């Protein structure tokens, strides 16, 4: 599969452009601050004492300011949901960039860690230089109290020193708990340590208040390097940057110094207030009660839950976050909506698969009535469902299914949920969407899993046949476990029976077929399933297409 430039640019171009822009801004900021301290007249004496350590530490500090400001913005999920849903961002290319917000957050986080290491290492050298090169000529720029003071004491007795150590420790805890492995196995540790960010920001704003580094205020009256009363010649320095303005001239007055004014709060306070406002908004919104209307048990450990909440509006493809205090007070779990509220039906629903501790306990609480024989348990007055809080809905890439003329939706197992919601919506009406053809590929391990949405698929299929557009929906179901003879035997699911294939799908052939029948069109590829499938599809989307079709890859991701 040769990589095609056109396909690559269509899929990856936007992301890489933003990445380059961000790298460019960081580099420019680093270089500008470095040069300011390297050859700036205000810092001449300080630079002579500390050397390169001063320039590197200040330059990395300015990059840290920028990244601490940017790292919070991608996590404002409600804002992004609003931008996505109301199409305020009208270009689809720009909306696709919103899908990568978590990746951008991780990139900023990694930059913070890397530049913290640089910043701390440079300051370690600075501390030793403050101690060893204590300046008797200009006592104001010293941070050490006397020559040869133990650098550890300097750190522990200044505000920037202590706050700096605390910041490194918090960053250490946050960083070590954020690896992919930790998020998959012990999500609680990740979540609780990441919420230390508020402590981090508060201490960060205190860190810059120490006023340790001072700049010279009277550069005109006392040009740096000028001759002073008790000197015969300018001090010889080995560095090029020592070219001071005042070499050879005599000073009019003594050098005066003032601490740098802290600018971190300028960078950081805006995004911090914005993010805190968003969290508060989400908390208030999720506090209104949710009524559980129906609980349905499906095969293969799946439970369908239909709920009712006042003023709840959602688009297909969005997800909600559930919190059940009876199961765990602090855990929040995301689930994609499989049914959105419409004018005819006010309830919204999710399908959840019982896989871990939380879902097991939640399922027990929902299905705890052993006397009920039927699978459907309607709301009975004396039945006590557990109290449930729903936060959301939040936007996801799968909302764009209707905005392409041709879409390919690939679902793996329970990953079918975002597309199920889209299919429900199509059942109500398809004409007002841009979508004209939908290819739906659903791969499951067991045959029983298809019964989760068998009714929905057959209903949609019948409706489209009635309206004489049978090729609107192209359905393919795959059972990947090939043991034994498997077939859907019910009469009412006949459309599914003929579209059931045993074995894994052959993606390359599928793409070629879609390419041939949709020449020179832009096909949206949506994948929600295991990593293997999404990586294969991503590679195929980037590779050469001989039929002129462009495949744009959109991936749903959790964790």
């Amino acid at each position, binding site marked *: 599969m040769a990589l095609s430039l056109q396909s690559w640019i269509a899929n990856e171009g936007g992301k890489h452009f933003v990445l380059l822009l961000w790298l460019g801004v960081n580099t420019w900021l680093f270089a500008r601050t470095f040069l300011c301290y390297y050859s700036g007249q205000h810092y001449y004496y300080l630079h002579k004492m500390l050397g390169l350590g001063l320039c590197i530490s200040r330059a990395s500090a300015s990059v840290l300011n920028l990244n601490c400001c940017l790292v919070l913005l991608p996590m404002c999920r409600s804002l992004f949901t609003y931008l996505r849903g109301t199409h305020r961002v009208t270009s689809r290319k720009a909306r696709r960039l919103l899908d990568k917000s978590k990746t951008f957050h991780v990139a900023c986080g990694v930059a913070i860690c890397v530049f913290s*290491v640089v910043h*701390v*290492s440079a300051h*370690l*050298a600075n*501390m*030793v230089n403050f101690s*060893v090169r204590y300046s008797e000529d200009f006592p104001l720029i010293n941070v050490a109290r006397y020559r040869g003071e133990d*650098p*550890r004491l300097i*750190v522990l007795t200044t505000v920037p020193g202590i706050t700096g*150590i605390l910041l*490194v*420790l918090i960053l*250490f*805890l946050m*960083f*070590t*708990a954020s*690896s*992919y*492995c*930790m998020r*998959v*196995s*012990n999500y*609680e*540790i990740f979540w609780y340590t990441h919420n230390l960010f508020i402590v981090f920001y508060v201490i960060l704003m205190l860190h810059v208040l120490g006023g340790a580094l001072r700049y010279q205020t009277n550069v005109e009256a006392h040009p740096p390097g000028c001759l002073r009363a008790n000197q015969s010649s300018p001090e010889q320095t080995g560095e090029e940057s020592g070219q001071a303005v005042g070499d050879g001239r005599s000073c009019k007055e003594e050098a005066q110094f003032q601490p740098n004014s802290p600018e971190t709060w300028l960078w950081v306070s805006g995004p911090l207030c914005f993010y805190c406002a968003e969290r508060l908004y989400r908390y208030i919104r999720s506090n209104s009660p949710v009524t559980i209307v129906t609980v349905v048990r499906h095969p293969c450990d799946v439970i369908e839950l239909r709920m009712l909440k006042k003023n709840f509006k959602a688009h297909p493809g969005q997800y909600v976050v559930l919190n059940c205090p009876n*199961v*765990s007070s602090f*855990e929040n779990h995301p689930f994609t909506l499989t049914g959105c509220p419409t004018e005819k039906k006010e309830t919204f629903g999710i399908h959840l698969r019982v896989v*871990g*501790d*939380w879902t097991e*306990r939640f399922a027990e609480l929902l299905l705890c009535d052993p006397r009920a024989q039927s699978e459907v348990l309607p709301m009975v007055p004396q039945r006590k469902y557990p109290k449930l809080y729903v936060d959301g809905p939040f936007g996801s890439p799968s909302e764009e299914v209707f905005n392409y003329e041709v879409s390919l939706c690939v679902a793996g197992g329970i990953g079918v949920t975002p597309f199920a919601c889209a299919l429900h919506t199509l059942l109500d009406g398809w004409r007002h969407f841009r979508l004209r053809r939908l290819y739906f590929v659903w791969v499951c391990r067991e045959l029983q899993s298809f019964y989760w949405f068998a009714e929905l698929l057959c209903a949609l299929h019948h409706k489209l046949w009635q309206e004489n557009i049978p090729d609107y929906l192209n359905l393919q179901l795959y059972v990947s476990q090939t043991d034994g003879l498997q077939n859907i035997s019910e009469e009412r699911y006949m459309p599914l*029976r*003929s579209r059931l294939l045993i074995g894994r799908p052959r993606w390359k052939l599928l793409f070629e077929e879609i390419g041939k029948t949709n020449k020179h069109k832009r096909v949206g590829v949506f994948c929600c399933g295991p990593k293997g499938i999404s990586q294969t599809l991503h590679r195929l989307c980037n590779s050469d297409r001989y039929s002129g079709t462009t495949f744009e890859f959109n991936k749903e991701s959790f964790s």
Partner: protein
Amino acid sequence: MGKIEWAMWANEQALASGLILLTGGIVGVAGQFRDWQFAAYAVAAGVFVCLLEYPRGKRNKGTSVERTGQYCFTVCVKSFGPLTRNYYVRAFLHAAICVPGAFILATVLGCVCLGIASLIYLAAAIRGEHWEPILPREESARKPVAESIKRPPQNPPPRPPAEIRRKRAEDLEGAAYVNPIPITE
């Protein structure tokens, strides 16, 4: 809710602390500051801690994700037996290693971070966790293919002679049979 495996977090922390100790040691040695011998010790200690902590242990439940190329480290660490299996030993070892880092500024941070990692290891040990190596699974999951598939039969199965098999017009009832599998489209 659910069992949290503290050892995994402690392992990540110890690996990061080893790197911090190593970096601090390099800065201290490169700057040739006073007492740079402590920095040299920190370089060696940092490398040792990284090598010890690189192989990830196996999770109790669920799939364990290996670090790239960790198999040879797993074999080395496994060979020390109970010394590396037990998290109490690791907790005290890290606590002992981190102490000399407190003597010069360059390695103070590495010392504090390794100290935190040692405390989390202690918590993991108290909860009864221990280190299990991740070893490659043997490929016995597939059912072995029977030998007979390679040697198909040469002769058709035995049948009664042709006269008995032919359907007779007078015995229509006996000639009918029911399909075991229903014919559907």
